């Protein structure tokens, strides 16, 4: 892209990015819920999460966050090399 973006175009980009981000957030939370639910929900005799499951979900989210940041730092390194 050669020319400088106009103010209006910049605004549009920001708007689109916001929309993308919100969609992305919904997506990640649904996907993560699925992942952690598959891993953690084992007791179907009660309808709420029991203590073990709750703890498992907590750890699952935490681990996922840490894993993503690890991946991210590697990705940054790799794409810096390219």
């Amino acid at each position: 892209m050669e020319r400088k973006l106009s103010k209006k175009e910049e605004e549009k980009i920001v708007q689109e990015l916001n929309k993308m981000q919100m969609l992305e957030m919904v997506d990640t939370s649904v996907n993560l819920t699925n992942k952690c639910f598959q891993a953690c929900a084992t007791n179907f005799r009660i309808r709420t999460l029991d203590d073990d499951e709750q703890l498992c979900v907590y750890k699952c989210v935490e681990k996922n966050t840490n894993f993503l940041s690890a991946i991210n730092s590697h990705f940054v390194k790799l794409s810096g090399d390219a």
Partner: protein
Amino acid sequence: MDDIDVKILEMKMISKMFTGISEACSAKCISKYSEGELNVGEAVCAERCAQKWMDTFKNVQSKINPQNAVPATPAEPAEQKKSSWF
């Protein structure tokens, strides 16, 4: 973001959640496809599974972004809805 965008986003979210629940719960609750009819265990499992999934979702969301967490629904109405056989 106008109102239409928000509404559409909301609907997308609901449909994604439904897809998630149906995938997760059919994996958890249906062991074999030898019968067309849903047996009692599977039906009960489906109901509990859906509730559990929503629980998980709330937990995950409040952990991911604590600032706009969905406030936990008060336990009372849920308690009343429970059928007598449990």
